[in-house]
């Protein structure tokens, strides 16, 4: 069987099956490596720590980029698509990041990290905590000390922001 017509079945954490073209699935370095090591008949790859919703998104990304490359889509179009693709709620975004990291899809990981970086770039410590649902685990003394030490830097960044 040629690789072109080969179909890979990806199984999510919640046992949902996704049939994906070989070229699309192997955009994940992890899957490419797995498929390399096994015989051609094997077509089912379990993705145990990614749920169906997120896996569907990841496959959507891979499929678009696989096609975009094939038909030589313009950079602007790809960029616009990427931007739209990243318009998801934070929880999904973070899960996509984890999935991209696990599946080793460098472009998607990079896109996701850039998106998150853009989200938190100008946010305050409290806003970031809220966004990530993180609770500050420093003692009050530690916090005060850090604030003092960071004073200079944050004034500077305010200046920079104002300049922009």
């Amino acid at each position, binding site marked *: 069987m040629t690789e072109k017509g080969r179909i890979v079945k990806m199984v999510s954490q919640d046992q949902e099956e996704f049939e994906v073209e070989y070229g699309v699935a192997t955009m994940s370095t992890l899957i490419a490596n797995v498929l390399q090591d096994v015989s051609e008949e094997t077509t089912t790859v379990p993705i145990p720590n990614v749920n169906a919703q997120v896996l569907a998104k990841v496959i959507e990304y891979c499929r678009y980029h696989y096609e975009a490359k094939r038909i030589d889509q313009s950079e602007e179009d790809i960029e616009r698509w990427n931007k739209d693709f990243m318009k998801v709620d*934070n*929880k999904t975004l*973070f*899960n996509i*990041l*984890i999935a991209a*990291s696990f599946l080793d899809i460098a472009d998607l*990981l*990079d896109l996701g*990290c*850039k998106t*998150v*970086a*853009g989200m*938190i*770039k*100008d946010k*305050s*410590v409290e806003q*970031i*905590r809220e966004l*990530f*649902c*993180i*609770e*500050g*685990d*420093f003692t009050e003394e530690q*916090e005060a000390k*850090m*604030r003092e*030490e*960071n004073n*200079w*830097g*944050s004034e*500077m*960044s305010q200046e*920079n922001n104002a300049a922009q």
Partner: protein
Amino acid sequence: MEATRDQSVVLGPDIMQEIFANLPVRSYGRMSQVCKDWNRVLKESDRIWRRRFREDFVQGARGGREKLLQNCSSAFMNSSLKIHAREAYMQQLAARTVTDPLVFELEGPSGGIWDVCPVGIDMAVTCTEKGSVQSWNVQYDQLRLMNERLIVPSGAALTDIVVDESLSYAVTCGLDSNFYLIDLLQRKVVKTCDSDLTLKMARSGNLVVTSSPGPTVRIYKGLFDRDPNVELETIPLVGHTDWVRSVCVIEKRGSGTSQLNPGYGGDLALSGADDYYVALFDLESAQLLGRMSAQPSQVHSVAASFDGGIGASGNSTGTVDLWDLKSHNQVGAMEKSSENIHALSFCPDGVTLLAGSDRGLSTWDLRNLKELKRFESEITSVRFSEAGELLFVCSGRRLLCSQLDKLDF
């Protein structure tokens, strides 16, 4: 609360590193305050810093100088880096006793080092009396000599060296009246320009401002141009009547400059000469903005504070005068023994001034004009890196380097 906890997705350190690597360095201080995990990722992750600096360097080389500057200066301001450096320093302290305020030093093998020019955030180039150019780098708390083989063809003593905006070319001037354009990556002289004898240089964008054994301060255009057919263009700045000993450029970036010079848009130059005067020029219009009298001393070195508001001049009689560059009035003077002060530099903290002379390096507290500390040795040049986090001092054949954190004033 339970609902929000449900929402929480924990991103591992690998992903966090990727995210941080996409953030401006100036935000790192804030990020390190979010929680212990983030703090740890930032502090322990050499990968971020290394990658970051390399990228910034490449970007700088491509001409994104502003970004480079912004990142560099905030890297210096950034507390997590400071904490990092301080911890490393404490370990170092535990290992040995540091008696000098200057932490690293290394001897260059070929002749006395006459000038140093910091390159980016962790490198420097130096030129020597034997006509050689060296590059150095500071990494992992160590100063290293990277390359020392480059010697200009005539072997003439090189008095000063400046690096261009892209950080890939340097111009050095020799006592053979030549300027040499050096490709720092290929480590070779790519162009030689025959010109006037030059003692000191300062860079303003693509221009180089020079002082010479004569009354003229010159602006050179095209010194960094690699094309051999491009002729050097010279603009004289008239304002002195005797040998100009020293020159420095006050960059427009500081808010101080626009205040002191509302009518002019560009960089300023400060020069000091044997005619007892310090002169302030506008580089764009090539006009003299003011003259400040340092009588009865000849002026051997000049420097300006980072914001451009205060100028300092080091004199033949060992005094250092401070000038308000807006009103052109003297605002302070510091006196020492009769030493020739030929290296001056403001510390980025804004309140410390370093003065190098034949006999040593003095640090002065500008708030009370008191001398803080002294380091005995012959000093030829004192320079802070552009971002201000590294201090380089040339002393005889040695280059000394210190991170600002480690200078104990």
